[in-house]
């Protein structure tokens, strides 16, 4: 379902990705690990073109992008297939929890407000935050904000959700609730690519672990 070939990315002289080949099948939960600075975040961000790779191809379902000649339309088709959960949540500060979730539905999917709200509430319910629907992000705990982030990602019906260290900015007390939500959506069959050092998650949920080092995937295997 995801097929990445020969992906390269540099920042100036710093060659971060040096030809990554990587694939993910539908329903897989792949955890991406590797030393700090290995390029895990970079790899994840090229998958939805937040960072533009300089070479290589990415295919997600029927969206295909070749870094050597890429159009705006292709970028958008890639983003349509993906959603992302960020390390620092990146919630829209001027929008309530519910509005964070419905924003993509209303502006991108052109849903009417009522439909969007009912779907948004459903998503908030899935992450256990229906009662916080009208709260602004600044009034939520880290764990709650990250669950809103997950609901926002779920709402746009992506083929895959990309998680970049979703629990590493959290106080230990909130990690459990976020992992719990991730477990649940994993068991609902969502395809996930997760950068995480969280061994609890790797052992209990991941179907595969990929090890990124020196800009290439050096090893793949089961969580053991």
């Amino acid at each position, binding site marked *: 379902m995801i097929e990445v070939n020969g992906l390269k990315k540099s920042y100036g002289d710093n060659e971060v990705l040096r030809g990554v080949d990587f694939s993910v099948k539908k329903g897989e939960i792949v955890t991406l690990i590797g030393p700090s600075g290995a390029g895990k975040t970079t790899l994840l961000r090229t998958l*939805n*073109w*937040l960072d533009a790779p300089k070479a290589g191809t990415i295919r997600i379902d029927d969206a295909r992008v070749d870094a050597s000649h890429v159009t705006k339309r292709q970028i*958008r088709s890639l*983003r*349509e297939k*993906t*959603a*992302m959960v*960020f390390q*620092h949540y*990146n*919630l*829209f*500060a*001027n*929008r*309530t929890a519910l509005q964070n979730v419905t*924003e*993509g539905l209303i*502006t*991108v999917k052109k849903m009417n407000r009522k439909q969007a709200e009912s779907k948004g509430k459903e998503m908030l319910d899935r992450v256990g935050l229906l009662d916080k629907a009208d709260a*602004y*992000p*600044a*009034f939520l705990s880290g764990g709650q904000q990250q669950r809103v982030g997950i609901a*926002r*990602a779920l709402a*746009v019906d992506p083929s895959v959700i990309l998680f970049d260290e979703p629990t590493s900015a959290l106080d230990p007390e909130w990690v459990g609730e976020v992992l719990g939500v991730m477990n649940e959506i994993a068991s609902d069959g969502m395809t996930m690519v997760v950068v995480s050092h969280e061994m609890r998650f790797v052992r209990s949920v991941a179907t595969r672990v990929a090890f990124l080092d020196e800009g290439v995937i050096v090893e793949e295997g089961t969580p053991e």
Partner: protein
Amino acid sequence: MGKIFDIHYMLSTIPEIVKYLPVTLKIALWSGVIALILGFAVAMVRVFRVRVLSQICVVYIYCISGTPAMVQLLVAYYGIPLLLRGLNESLGTDWNVTGIPASVFAVAALSLNSAAFMSETIRSAILSVEAGQMEACYSVNMTTMQAMRRVVLPQAFAVALPPLGNSLISLLKETSLIFNISVIEMMAAAKIVGARSFRFFEVYIVVALIYWICCLALERILILLERRVRKYERRAVK
């Protein structure tokens, strides 16, 4: 003419001076609206680094912030007609240069002045919204325009509002300079009234009071507006 300070005389001049308040307010309002629009446009040009235009905007901001408003006013008053005359001669057009009322030059100068400062305020407010939110917009497939309109600009507006408010208040006060280019507004009226009795101090006190009341009112409005737009922020109780 014996009294040092003639309060009865002062009070009696109020109606004559207040009569010109609408002129002052109208010029302030037009200048404020144009400055906001222009300042916003300049900020966007600079945020998106539009080629050539962006460099032009930088030069414009430098020119404005490095020269006194009074000088800009006079340059506009004498310079714009020259510019138009030059255009008339080189293009063979026939714009009526002498028919332009002085208040138009006043609005042009004041709004160009204020827009330069406002653009810097708006630009830094836009940049103050974390890039992560923009990325989150992209991650749900919003376009740059949608992200700006729905997420970045509303927050930038909330951040920019207090300094923009200060700029508007400065602008209102700077209207007191425009009598210099022969616009008959409150200051000019006060000068005329004062010259009749040689009691300038009293009439300028009247002008000061009127400006003061206007600024207070504007400040109140801005505070109310600010409360409304910052409702999503978590702040310590005072």
